[in-house]
């Protein structure tokens, strides 16, 4: 799904969720190559290392995204998950929400034999010194959107175009790199949905 379309879809779903027209949703998918800037990157783009023309020549779009966080990359082989959840009434704590998202990823990759962890002060999910999943969230009247991006079979060299999340001295990794073989995205979505249901105490209904 194009990034632009995912923005439009999410903004509609957030409005519908706020109005109580739809249940909680978890959108999963992949984006074409795109670099997105969170609100922390709005006033300075120092963490985008490649020039606009370089990005253009490589067919990479650049978007400002209404989510928390700095800059990140999305592309084929990376699973993006965008929960549209109403956190009211019992989960109105955005730190808890972010820690819960991390827990979902930690449990998901655990099913593939990967032991990932949190790093205090550096939101996201890490394996050693490398980031496996990035988080950037928007909350509007306690309805969430945006979410996290988990590198499954991501071509990691694309991250060299940016300084991921504006953090120096750390790298990125993927499930495929950690397990030594490509991983089925559908299998990850399946594990992810189950972990998500468990952590957030929701029942699952799958829709194409």
């Amino acid at each position, binding site marked *: 799904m194009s990034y632009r379309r995912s923005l439009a879809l999410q903004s509609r779903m957030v409005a519908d969720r706020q109005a109580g027209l739809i249940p909680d949703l978890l959108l999963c998918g992949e984006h074409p190559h795109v670099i997105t800037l969170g609100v*922390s990157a709005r006033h300075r783009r120092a963490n985008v290392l490649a020039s606009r023309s370089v990005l253009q020549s490589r067919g990479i779009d650049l978007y400002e995204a*209404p989510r928390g966080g700095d800059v990140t990359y999305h592309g084929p082989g990376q699973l993006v998950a965008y929960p549209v959840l109403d956190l009211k009434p*019992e989960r*109105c704590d955005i*730190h*808890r929400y*972010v820690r819960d998202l991390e827990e979902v990823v930690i449990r998901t990759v655990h099913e593939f034999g990967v032991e990932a962890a949190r790093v205090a002060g550096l939101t*996201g999910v890490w394996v050693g010194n490398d980031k496996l999943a990035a988080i*950037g969230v*928007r909350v509007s009247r306690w309805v969430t959107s945006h979410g996290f991006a988990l590198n499954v079979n991501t071509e990691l060299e694309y991250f060299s175009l940016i300084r991921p999340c504006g953090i120096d001295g750390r790298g990125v990794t993927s499930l495929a790199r950690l397990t030594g073989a490509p991983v089925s995205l559908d299998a990850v979505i399946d594990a992810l949905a189950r972990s998500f249901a468990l952590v957030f105490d929701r029942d699952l209904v799958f829709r194409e």
Partner: protein
Amino acid sequence: MATSVLMPQLGESIAEGTIVRWNKRVGETVDRDEPLFEISTDKVDAEIPSPAAGVVTEIRVAEGETVPVDTVVAFIADEDDATDGPSPAPADLVPEATNSGSEPAPGRVLTSPVPSPARGPSRTTQSSPIVRRLAHEHGLDVSTIVGTGDRGRVTKEDVLSAVEMGDQESGATDRVEPMSVMRRRIAEHMVASRRTSAHVHTVFDVDFSRVEALRMSHKTAFEASAAKLTYLTFVAKAVVDAVQDVPVVNSSVDNDSVVYRKDVNLGIAVALDRGLIVPVVKRAQDRTMAELSQGIGDLSRRARDKQLNPDDVAGGTFTITNPGVFGSIVGMPIINQPQVAILCVGAVERRPAVVANEVVAQTRSYLTLGFDHRVIDGAVADRFMGIVKRNLEQFDESLL
């Protein structure tokens, strides 16, 4: 009357927020609940609705600035400002507020403030958890506060003005705080246990010298491959092994029957900021020291991170509580129903002991067994504790 707009607290552990965007400028009108600004904290961008309808008269915190929770970030005034009696707005705001009332910006028609939404006959109070907590902190019941927010919602301002009024009326100092759900459940559980079991306690003085020595010599190797090697891990292992010899301590009472449980599902009491919880290490009898320590470490971590699943706290057959870490020497614990025994570990510390007629310093701890005299007699409890003591004082190094 001017309304001050505060930096909201969007989570228990959040102390500050960064304003990343103002959706309104000074002089612009805003409706109640219309997005007024966006804040960012820990990778979350949150859109904050306006607490009142009116005109933005002052913006105190610029985009990009970070301020503590509850800092005033802006003021919103309605048109009645001048006639509305004493205003809580600070003095430096008054000229500007008056200005915006008498001299609207060119081309802009000031809309009338939106009237308060009519409240229906039923006062089912709506409020956010943060507002409810604020009310609790001030000993107020949210349902007694008149809400001025959307559909009668009680807002932070409503609570604060109720507090102000309360202070003026009574000058009361006692704080009434309704129990949290967790508090209520602990209370019910403890009283029910006292009512159910015939509690008896027996205290054993245990020499931890060998455990201490083993811990020191194996710590590095153990912790490289497994989790932390704590005294609690040794105690857990000693208890689980002793249960094999005295299975009744791992039973429960079902009417007129005693149910001897096949598995030792070991509950570990974990203290939390606002209570305690007892996650359970399942099938502890099949676990090595490393697996026990991993299990305990993982559960305590997830208990503190609020990541436990219902399954993690279910099915316990025996509980260990460890107030020694807080300095307690001897505890007298209440049994965790429907179990029949609970072991309490006092502080493991150096103290004098008599060995071969000499007073020497030793690392020791008082272990207490709280047991249910309905099914466990004193002699049986003491036999169990004797085995736990022996397992610890002569700890089998090959288990490590």
